[in-house]
Structure formats: structure tokens, C-alpha cells
């Protein structure tokens, strides 16, 4: 084609101009992905946090019904059954509310009485070697037994619960299929209505009058109730969140996936794995190492500071339902966590690291709900105050400025996700 009205030079310019315009247009239509600005070590850290790195759901060797589908069903029913409590109004789900990611939104749990501690979530706890803020139990099943008898929580007793579950037509049928022979508690002279050690005086003295064999039969049945509840709780695991999408896309292509994270969220992640030092405790795909740390949390108004793990370790060792106890299904020599539990002054005032997944749905925070918002929590770690008891491990202020704290919070909000479970498990069975 000849364009006689244009000089040769002008034609070259026109050509260049067209090329440039085409380039600009293609820019609009082709997604631009800048190369990942992460170092290899940072990518390794991001990968370690992704749910894709989460190992398969572990079996609890101390609970032979750990993955029994029928035990999951029985546990599901028991979890929502308020008849297990003294006043028939409190179930596990009264404090571990499915709609609040199995927490209750309160500073300290309220059941029949006022509990001492904040209700922790159950989600992902199948991966935790320790239960409770101070680790005073070492399995989901032994934990599930505690609130049933705690006078401030369900305030019942093991004799009542063992009989109730094994005499209820529906439950006894399931119990029989899971655990075998049903115990016979029909002789009231041997098995009173209510009995249990360390509980209110009438129940305690009734327990003391029972023979060792009868006590043992009740304990065994009671432990099985816990094992069924644990089989259900084991199923509660988080589904992938926006962070996991980002991490997986980033690691697959080694390119910044521009359309998943905002700039603030990327920067927040960078702070999380770097200067924020969050990963020292909130590591692994569940954003917790399930270990005990003193982070200088101020005690609850009117309460003495909690001694934390120091007391928890003492209690778990003497608990008859621990991994080495006679109701555990595990070879005692294989209870490695209990055998190798560390002691020492570092554990004074130390409490278990909670998961950060679903942070937004689980306020208030810390072992007594002392901190109300994620923002306040980040400010706490940024300041690193002196501990009231023991020594604050995070003893140097982080030196993050306000916009960095905001970015860190933006990142933390990308850890929201529903549970990786069918809806029917999140409500009472039909």
C-alpha cells in the first residue's frame, strides 16, 4: 500500500506507533503477572503454611474408635446432647458453637457456672498433642470427659453418664457395635444413680463405696463416651482459605498471582513470615505449633496470673485417662509426648499457641478473652510488655509502624474459610 502523502520517515513513525498501540492493547487483554518477589526461603515458609502441606488426618492410637464411622455418628449425637449435663440444658455445643467456629464469643466460658478460661476452638485439634490452654489433657477423648464432670460446666458425673449412654435405646445400640459388650449397671446397690471421684460430697462418697472392679467398669464406659465424642471432633478441620489459594498459585507458577491478594495482603504476609516473627509460634498449615509460650498477656481483671503449662503438665501426668493410663488403647511406652514432655521455668505462665485460621470469627482472644480484636492483639505483640509471671518470650518490641500492623491484619483476614465438612455435622443429628 502506498501512502504518497506521508514521507518515508513519517511512515516509519506510523509503523512504530501502530506497534506500540498493539502492545498497549495486548497489555489490557493479557493478564500481567509480575515475577514473584519472594526469596527461595520465603517461598519455603509460605509453602509450609499452606493447607496443601497439612499431613493426612492423624489417628489417635490411644483411641481405637478414633476413625470408626459409627463412633463419629455417636460422638456427633453426644456432642449436641444436653441430657448429659446436670440440668439437661448444656451440651458440648453450648460453648463450642459450630456457627462461631466452635467457640462461644465470651471472655470466659459460661455453662452451668462460670468457667475459668476462654473456650478454645476444636477445629484442627486432632493434630494437637495437647488439649486446653495449659495442656492438661493429652487427647481429644480425655479432654471431652472433663467438662462433663466440671461443676462449672456440665456438672454431671461419670456413673450417671455411663448408665445414660448404655441404657438409652439408640445410643446403647451404637455403643454395642463400636465397643462390644454393654456393661450391666442394673444393680443399684452396686451402681448408684450418681457417683464420681472428686465431685460433690454425696457423689464422691457413693463412688468411694463402690468396689474397685465396679469403678473400673464405670471408668471404662465413661472413657468410651469420650472416645466417641473425640471421633466426631477429629473430623473438624479447616477448608482452604484465600491464603491457601494465593500460596498454591504462587508456588505453582513461581509468579505473583496478581488477582488473588491485594498489595496490603502481600505486604502483610511478608511481615508475618519476616519482621513480625509470627511464625516462631504460629507455624505449620494450622498456624500453630501447639506448644506453650509465655507472651506476656496481662491477667484478667480481678484474677491472679495463670501459671499455665507448669500446672497443666502436673495435671496431665496424674490424670487417669492420659495416654499411659489403663483406659488408653496405646502401648504406654509409645506415649512419646507424655514421656518427653519438657519441664522448666520457661513454662511458667506459658499457654498453648492457638491457630490463626478463622481468627475473625473467634473473638475475644487469649486464654481469658483479655484481648478483644485482632488489632489489639497485634499491638500487644508489637509492644512486647513484661510478663506478670514468668518471662515473656517475645521480649523485644517488633517496631512495626501503624500501616504495617494494618497490612498484617489484612493478611490475617485472608485465613477465613468454612470447615472442610458436610453441613449435617455442624448441627444436631436429625
Amino acid at each position, binding site marked *: 500500500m502506498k501512502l504518497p502523502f506521508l514521507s518515508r520517515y513519517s511512515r516509519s513513525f506510523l509503523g512504530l506507533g501502530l506497534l506500540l498501540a498493539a502492545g498497549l492493547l495486548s497489555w489490557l487483554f493479557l493478564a500481567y503477572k509480575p515475577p514473584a518477589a519472594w526469596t527461595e526461603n520465603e517461598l519455603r*515458609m509460605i509453602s*509450609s503454611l499452606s493447607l496443601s502441606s497439612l499431613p493426612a488426618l492423624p489417628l489417635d492410637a490411644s483411641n481405637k474408635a478414633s476413625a470408626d464411622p459409627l463412633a463419629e455418628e455417636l460422638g456427633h449425637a453426644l456432642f449436641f446432647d444436653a441430657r448429659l449435663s446436670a440440668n439437661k440444658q448444656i451440651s458440648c455445643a453450648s460453648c463450642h458453637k459450630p456457627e462461631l467456629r466452635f467457640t462461644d464469643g465470651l471472655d470466659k466460658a459460661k455453662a452451668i457456672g462460670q468457667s475459668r478460661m476462654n473456650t478454645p476452638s476444636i477445629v484442627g485439634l486432632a493434630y494437637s*498433642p495437647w488439649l486446653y490452654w495449659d495442656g492438661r489433657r493429652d487427647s481429644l477423648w480425655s479432654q471431652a470427659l472433663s467438662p462433663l464432670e466440671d461443676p462449672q460446666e456440665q456438672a454431671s458425673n461419670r456413673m450417671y453418664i455411663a448408665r445414660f449412654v448404655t441404657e438409652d435405646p439408640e445410643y446403647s445400640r451404637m455403643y454395642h457395635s463400636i465397643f462390644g459388650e454393654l456393661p450391666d449397671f442394673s444393680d443399684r446397690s452396686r451402681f448408684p444413680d450418681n457417683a464420681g471421684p472428686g465431685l460433690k460430697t454425696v457423689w464422691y462418697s457413693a463412688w468411694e463405696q463402690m468396689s474397685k472392679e465396679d469403678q473400673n467398669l464405670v471408668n471404662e464406659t465413661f472413657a468410651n463416651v469420650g472416645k466417641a465424642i473425640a471421633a466426631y471432633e477429629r473430623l473438624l478441620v479447616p477448608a482452604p482459605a484465600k491464603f491457601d489459594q494465593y500460596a498454591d498459585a504462587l508456588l505453582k507458577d513461581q509468579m505473583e498471582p496478581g488477582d488473588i491478594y491485594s498489595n496490603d495482603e502481600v505486604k502483610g504476609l511478608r511481615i508475618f513470615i519476616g519482621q513480625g516473627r509470627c*511464625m*516462631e*509460634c504460629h*507455624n*505449620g498449615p494450622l498456624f500453630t*505449633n*501447639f*506448644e506453650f509460650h509465655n507472651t506476656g498477656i496481662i491477667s484478667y481483671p480481678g484474677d491472679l496470673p495463670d501459671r499455665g503449662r507448669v500446672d497443666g503438665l502436673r495435671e496431665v501426668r496424674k490424670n487417669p485417662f492420659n495416654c499411659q493410663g489403663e483406659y488408653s488403647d496405646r502401648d504406654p511406652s509409645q506415649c*512419646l*509426648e507424655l*514421656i*518427653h*514432655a*519438657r*519441664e*522448666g521455668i*520457661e513454662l511458667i505462665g506459658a499457654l498453648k499457641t492457638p491457630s490463626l485460621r478463622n481468627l475473625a470469627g473467634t473473638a475475644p482472644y487469649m486464654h481469658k478473652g483479655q484481648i478483644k480484636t485482632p488489632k489489639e492483639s497485634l499491638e500487644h505483640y508489637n509492644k512486647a510488655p513484661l510478663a506478670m509471671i514468668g518471662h515473656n*518470650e517475645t*521480649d523485644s518490641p517488633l517496631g512495626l509502624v501503624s500501616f504495617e500492623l494494618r497490612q498484617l491484619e489484612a493478611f490475617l483476614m485472608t485465613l477465613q474459610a468454612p470447615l472442610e465438612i458436610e453441613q449435617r455435622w455442624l448441627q444436631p443429628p436429625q
Partner: protein
Amino acid sequence: MFKKLMLLKIALFLQMLVLNVFAQQESTSVLESEKGFFRLSYESQLNPIVINQMHSWTLHIVDVDGNAVSDAEISIGGGMPEHNHGLATAPSIKTVGNGNYQLQGLRFHMMGHWELELTISSGATEDTVVVILDL
């Protein structure tokens, strides 16, 4: 200018080689104790070692002449010097024989620089091996 760049490239290449050698050493190396009395090699049940998982190691200890040390008493210490805290667990030692020992109950609860101090005593000799782990 070109020469300088070439020199830089060669330097980087050499550094890479050195780093690679170190990286390989981590899993197979023989570590010498501080005063030189013992040499220790170890094999972890977990390979690579990851955080938050309980596991054990097999240790092998020899003296300066390469003879297996089978009567050693080993005490375990260490932690993360940068964070000023100890180990997450209280590991223990089981003697296997022929200079082999099982180090049980290890679980590292953070990524980063760990130092595991194994103090070995055999007869009148006592010496410490520091195993360095970057997780």
C-alpha cells in the same frame, strides 16, 4: 568493566560450589566434639527434619582412633540461641550397642537455627558435640 563482571561471576560460582558442599554435608557429615575426643554421626528418622513432628535419631559415636564407644553416657541440651529458649521436649537416650544410641523424643517447634548439645562421657573423658540444624 567486563573483566570485573567476569571476576564477580567466578566468585559467585565458587561460592555456590562451597554452599552446595555444605548443604550436602548436613545430612551425612561426621561431627567432631569440641575437644576432639569423639566423633559423632547421626541419622534422623525424619528426612528431611520438619518442625512439629515427634521423632528419633540414631547416633553413632567413635573415639579418635575410630573405635565404637559403647559405654557413653549422653546428656542432651540446647535450643534456639537466637530466641533464648531451650528444646520443646525432653529427649532421652537409649543405648543400642556397638557405639549406637537412640535419641528419642525430639520435636522442634519453630523454623530457624537450632543447636543440639550432646555431652558425651565415657570413662574419664567428657566432651560435647554441638549439632547445628537450620530448619
